[in-house]
């Protein structure tokens, strides 16, 4: 009946070494007010000087999001008062954002959807307030730390093209994935290097008019975004269904009770009195510079996923999983290159064993001790018959834990597969001898029981026997 109309605004902290307008460090978690200077403290007479790398990251991101990079750009002042804002104005880009009119493609339940990006712009972050008692309400006083003041932020605003809470979730995942691929931000919501606000309205399905927007804040995870939107869709639908009107307001997501709560209505819209920043000369981003930045763009997740499907003949599922991070995709391709066997085999091992172990131990791909080359070697050993697939799992666990090569582990643990026919025959005969009744059953026609004998051989050899050969030799012997 109703369809949600959702727009998302994301702020990411850029991973530069120094702040946007001064050379103070951007290091997270430094002692309070230890990364400050007259510029970011807003002391009298201090002046901003622009960090070139932040502009590069802005250009890079704009390109990755398919935006038009603005050739003549500049900074503006957004004037408002708040204790964490050291100059009581924020230097931002209001009139000429660095990037505009882009899009990203998102897959929701198998369907590809395009979400347009309205604008991408640079601005400085504010300081951090620590409130007495923990929350701003009821606090007797607040403490200000300006370490974060001046850290470069990129604001990415989508058009209200998102049509479901799930799509919002996928949008955020894809956006973060792209930003991590670019290496421009850590995108850690828990550290505050990625923040998002969403706005949502509803309208009758098929209508092209916009309903009253509600802004949602205090969203601390992508799941919170999804759930808060689900809640809002229900809440707004109820309001309208009962003949009421949705109020234009800001609502706060309460994680504990999983509801949105109305914040006090703003009585008057704040007039930010934007005007061009007179302390900073204009920005001319010429085509040559944009082209130069373009050459530094990595293959983006969407494109890489498609290439994995076509080049490696992988299914959609595998390709999506393997391209979730650039590091994992790099790992996969490195392993495939070394292996030069079936890419699907490599994919299976990564998806099955590697990711399982990574999740179980909380290890990031960058910390994994198994090199792509070692994985490839192990797969080659399976192919050669040196070890069985089953033994390989044990070997792999050891490789993961210790970082040793498969050859070393197999040697140390004496796990080399027994494929010597004479030796296997000896054991096969032994097992047949010890299990005459079963052997007779098989000879009598109960073919399935051969599994049991195979099992016995494997038991005796502690899994090292080549199962295929064991099977053949048993049949051979039993048919004699």
């Amino acid at each position, binding site marked *: 009946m109703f369809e949600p109309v959702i727009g998302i605004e994301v702020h990411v902290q850029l991973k*530069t*070494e*120094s702040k946007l307008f001064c*050379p*103070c*460090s951007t290091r997270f978690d430094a*002692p*309070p*007010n*230890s*990364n*400050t*200077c*007259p510029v970011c*403290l807003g002391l009298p007479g201090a002046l901003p*000087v*622009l*960090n*070139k*790398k*932040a*502009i590069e990251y802005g250009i890079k991101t704009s390109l990755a999001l398919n935006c038009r990079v603005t050739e003549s750009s*500049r900074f503006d002042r957004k*004037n408002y*008062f*708040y*204790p964490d804002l050291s100059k*009581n104005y924020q230097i931002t880009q209001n009139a000429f954002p660095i990037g505009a009119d882009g899009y990203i493609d998102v897959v929701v339940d198998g369907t590809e959807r395009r979400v347009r990006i309205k604008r991408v712009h640079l601005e400085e972050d504010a300081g951090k*307030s*620590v*409130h*007495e008692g923990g929350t*701003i*309400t009821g*606090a*007797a*006083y*607040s*403490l*200000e*730390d*300006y370490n974060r003041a001046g850290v470069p932020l990129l604001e990415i605003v989508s058009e209200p093209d998102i049509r479901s809470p799930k799509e919002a979730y996928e949008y955020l995942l894809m956006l973060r994935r792209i930003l991590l691929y670019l290496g421009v931000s850590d995108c850690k919501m828990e550290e505050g290097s990625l923040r998002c606000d969403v706005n949502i309205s509803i309208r009758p399905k098929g209508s092209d008019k916009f309903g009253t927007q509600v802004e949602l804040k205090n969203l601390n995870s992508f799941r919170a975004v999804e759930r808060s939107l689900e809640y809002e869709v229900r809440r707004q639908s109820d309001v309208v269904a009962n003949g009421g009107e949705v109020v234009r307001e800001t609502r706060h997501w309460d994680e504990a009770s999983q509801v949105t709560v109305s*914040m*006090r209505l*703003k*009585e008057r819209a*704040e*007039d930010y*009195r934007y005007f*061009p920043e*007179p302390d*900073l*000369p*204009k*920005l*001319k981003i010429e085509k040559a510079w944009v082209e130069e930045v373009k050459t530094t763009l990595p293959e983006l997740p969407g494109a890489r996923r498609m290439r994995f499907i076509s080049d490696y003949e992988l299914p959609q599922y595998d390709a999506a999983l393997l391209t979730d991070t650039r590091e994992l995709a790099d790992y996969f391709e490195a392993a495939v290159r070394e292996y030069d066997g079936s890419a699907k085999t490599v994919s299976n091992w990564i998806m099955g064993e590697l990711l399982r172990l990574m999740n179980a131990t909380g290890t990031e791909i960058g910390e994994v001790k198994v090199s792509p080359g070692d994985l490839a070697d192990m797969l080659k050993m399976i192919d050669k018959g040196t070890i069985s697939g089953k033994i390989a799992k044990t070997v792999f666990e050891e490789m993961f834990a210790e970082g040793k090569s498969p050859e070393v582990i197999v040697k140390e643990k004496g796990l080399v597969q027994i494929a010597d026919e004479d030796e296997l025959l000896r054991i096969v005969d032994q097992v047949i001898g010890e299990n005459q009744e079963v052997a007779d059953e098989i000879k009598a026609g109960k073919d399935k029981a051969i599994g049991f004998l195979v099992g016995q051989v494997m038991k005796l050899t502690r899994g090292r026997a080549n199962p295929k050969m064991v099977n053949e030799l048993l049949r051979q012997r039993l048919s004699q």
Partner: protein
Amino acid sequence: MSITKEDVERMSILARLELSEDEQSLFAEQLSEISRIIDSLAEVDTEDMDEMIFPSELGNVFREDTVLPSADPEEALSNAPDREDRFFKVPRILEVD
């Protein structure tokens, strides 16, 4: 341009500037006087002129992304009207009104 007492009051709220009733009235009067010069701006033909933000042709002034030593926190806090440890202390922050 006539600036009323209400205008002055509204501006004083935006500018976080506490003004007494008398000041509001006085400023409204004085600024309305001053605005007589400012209104003359409307007479000028600026059809084909661009907005000139600053008197300079400079563009693309950057610094490299290098970290330099910050101020000592004690220096940073040296003029703080109120502090607690290495934080600036301020009275409670009410929600936006």
